[in-house]
């Protein structure tokens, strides 16, 4: 039954929307469904019944000719995205966000674990000497890093097969309205996740301040807590951002201008350079110079820099137009 309605949706996807066509489509659907049910009653299998119904559908141009509707030439060239594809993409994007977010969280936990173990053994010289403590921390960190890298690869592969979404595509009208409704309902969740994430980001340095205030020896613990809470915020951004991104991508207007594409490309490139660089600088100044107390400001600076690059492009585009 579902197949028949999807088939009809696809047949009508290239046609304009008007009440006459809507009625016609409903009529066709009920006729086809009735035929299908009768074939099933006669003992035909699901596949046979659907096959017969579809083979007896005919030619949509016969209808459009009668109604005086021309199929616009350009419209036919643009591929139509099926409902199934769209939902598979949404699911993949969501799961990819989950794994990327978890990977980042895990990587941050790795650094935090290392810091904690290193400091723990240095300050308290428990049952192991200092060197072994550092070693243990390093091993733990790299195990977590390896798991994180595995998650990144897994998430990247999940999205790899959706290259066709980079091209221009069209959504069937019904799917478009369903997605728009979905995005509308999702907006609340997304906003909440963003606010929580921003709060976590802004409040996370408090861990460092607090440990500085209590005792300088405790700073590495503060940094660990800072890293984990900041990573939790990043997780929220990535996971919920990916779901929002899936909606935006599916519902975007097909006429994406080259300038806009270029802008997206540059933004992605800036992000890909600035953030790993900031992280590397953060870890370097921390481990080599032990300036955990102050080097976290690298992240807000990186945030401002990427923000400025976005603003720069918006201003540039305004000037051009």
């Amino acid at each position, binding site marked *: 039954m579902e197949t028949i309605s999807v088939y009809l949706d696809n047949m009508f996807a290239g046609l304009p929307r008007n009440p006459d066509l809507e009625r016609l489509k409903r009529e066709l659907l009920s006729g086809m469904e009735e035929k299908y049910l009768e074939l099933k009653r006669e003992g035909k299998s699901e596949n046979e019944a659907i096959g017969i119904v579809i083979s*007896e559908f005919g030619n949509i141009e016969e209808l459009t000719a009668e109604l005086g509707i021309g199929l616009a030439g350009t419209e036919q060239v643009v591929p139509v995205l099926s409902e199934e594809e769209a939902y598979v993409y949404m699911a993949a994007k969501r799961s990819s966000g989950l794994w990327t977010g978890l990977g980042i969280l895990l990587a941050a936990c790795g650094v935090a674990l290392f810091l904690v173990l290193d400091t723990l053994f240095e300050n308290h010289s428990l049952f192991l000497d200092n060197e072994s403590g550092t070693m243990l921390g390093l091993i733990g960190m790299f195990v977590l890093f390896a798991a994180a890298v595995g998650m990144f690869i897994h998430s990247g592969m999940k999205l790899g097969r959706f290259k066709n979404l980079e091209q221009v595509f069209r959504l069937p009208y019904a799917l478009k309205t369903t997605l728009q409704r979905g995005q509308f309902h999702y907006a609340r969740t997304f906003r909440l996740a963003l606010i929580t994430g921003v709060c976590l980001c802004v409040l996370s340095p408090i861990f460092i301040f607090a440990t500085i205030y209590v005792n300088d020896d405790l700073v590495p613990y503060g940094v660990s807590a800072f890293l984990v809470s900041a990573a939790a915020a990043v997780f929220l951004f990535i996971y919920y951002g990916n779901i929002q991104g899936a909606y935006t991508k599916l519902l975007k207007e097909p006429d994406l201008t080259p300038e806009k594409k270029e802008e997206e490309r540059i933004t992605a490139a800036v992000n890909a350079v600035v953030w790993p660089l900031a992280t590397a600088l953060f870890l370097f100044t921390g481990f080599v110079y032990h300036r955990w107390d102050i080097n976290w400001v690298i992240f807000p600076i990186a945030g401002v820099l990427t923000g400025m690059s976005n603003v720069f492009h918006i201003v540039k585009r305004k000037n051009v137009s």
Partner: protein
Amino acid sequence: MISSDVIRGYNDTMILYMLLDGESYGYEISKNIRQLTQEKYVMKETTLYSAFTRLEKNGYIESFYRDESFGKRRTYYRITPLGLAHYKEKCEEWKVTQQVVNQFIREW
């Protein structure tokens, strides 16, 4: 299998015939055509519904809703006096056509 080119001019006539004895709806009409022709002719869905559109536009049939069991609402069609006149014309036309074509058909 009947070529759709040949029969195209008489799809409307078949539908009008099916409505002669009373109102009916899309699937029932197509099913009856199939049975009446011993499955030699199956009218495609798009052919059926473009014919409905055309016939209604010309005033040969009129449609109305009727509620069925289980809350289903069907579109029914009934033939109009104009449609009946058109049908009679088509019958005459076919008789002539048949006579003409038959002149060229040799029985083997």
